[in-house]
């Protein structure tokens, strides 16, 4: 995997101080949201804990760190746009990150299933996420919890059925 290339803002010291001016702050938060999503996507990191020390929130080169409160502000914004969801209690600081929203994931997965003629046969989660057939798909090696959420949504629409076979999950698309 190629190393993540941070945007220029990452080296811009004020990027790590919450801006008071409304317009500037809007711009700042939207750039942070973008950064978190592209970072999570490239590193295939489905879960972020804002209490952890991470290069994502701290740039040691310019000695700047994003305060925990600001991290929370930004993650809350990500939740609002359905790009994140808090895991566990409100204070856990753990968030699932969706660079595609669950809605978008379910569409991507379902259209793949239809287009590749995989409907009406049982497929295991393992072969879907790690098999050769899906190697060039966006959901290849996707976090299983996120994958499950997308499938549950499809199930709700009657487009698939999720089943458990000997402790392993499988799915049948209709």
């Amino acid at each position: 995997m190629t190393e993540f290339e941070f945007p220029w803002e990452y080296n811009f010291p004020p990027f790590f101080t919450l801006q008071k001016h409304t317009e500037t702050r809007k711009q700042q938060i939207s750039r942070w949201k973008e950064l978190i999503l592209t970072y999570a996507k490239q590193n295939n990191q489905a879960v972020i804990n804002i209490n952890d020390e991470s290069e994502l929130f701290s740039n040691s080169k310019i000695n700047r760190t994003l305060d925990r409160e600001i991290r929370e502000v930004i993650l809350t914004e990500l939740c609002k746009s359905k790009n994140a969801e808090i895991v566990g209690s409100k204070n856990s600081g753990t968030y699932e990150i969706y660079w595609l929203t669950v809605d978008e994931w379910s569409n991507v997965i379902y259209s793949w299933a239809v287009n590749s003629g995989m409907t009406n046969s049982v497929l295991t989660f393992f072969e879907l996420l790690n098999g050769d057939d899906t190697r060039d798909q966006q959901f290849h090696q996707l976090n299983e919890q996120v994958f499950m959420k997308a499938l549950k949504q499809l199930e709700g629409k009657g487009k698939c059925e999720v089943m458990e076979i000997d402790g392993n999950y499988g799915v049948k698309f209709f």
Partner: protein
Amino acid sequence: MRRRAGVGAIQKQKLEADKFRDKGTQLQDSQFEQMSKQVVSLKENLEEFSDKYKSEIRKNPTFRRQFTEMCAAIGVDPLSSSKGVWSVLGMGDFYFELSIQIVEICLASAESTGGMMELSEIKERLSKSRRQKIQQEITTEDVLLATKKLKAFGNSFQVHPLGKNRYIIQSIPGELSLQETKALSTAANTENGAITKSLLMKELGWNEIRTQQAIDKLISEGLVWVDSQCDDEPTYYFPSLFPGRKNKIEST
């Protein structure tokens, strides 16, 4: 005995006046004819000239500058209209095209720069986006001239000198106060395009209230971002002057 004015004399006078008028019209006509001829020949010469040098105008910045200087000397604005004799040179087209590209560049990054961009950066972006086409060198004068044309759209496009042949183009409406302009120039001379209260007080000899007012105004216009994680006092950064952002042009 005085001769009484007779019908004959009146007629004679009238005849003379008519003759004079005729002669006058004749002269006027011939002058007009001559002038028309001159205009035609000027146009022909210009066309010939432009055929010869059109590509030179687009390619050669020195030639372009000399030409605009010549036009200024004889009181002709080759950019004022895309019609008329001067249009054959394509001079107007050249600058119109440039103006549009400048607008595009400024607006594309207005969000992250607060609507400010240094002329040198515009120049660099221009030459990058034009590279695919015929090789054209764009000079600072060209950008200034093209930006001047944009003043027709109100005060949305303004040029602020930063000293030492440096300029910053403002692509958002609104007047910069004298204080803001001075603060901007001060920032332009720092490594990161950033200022602090004490720097402004020292460099510009302002008192604290005046300094604070200038900074507050800059913040409220979205021109600076605050960094509160420095050792001693808050630092205010102009994203438009931040080298880390500008350097991104080369890598993208």
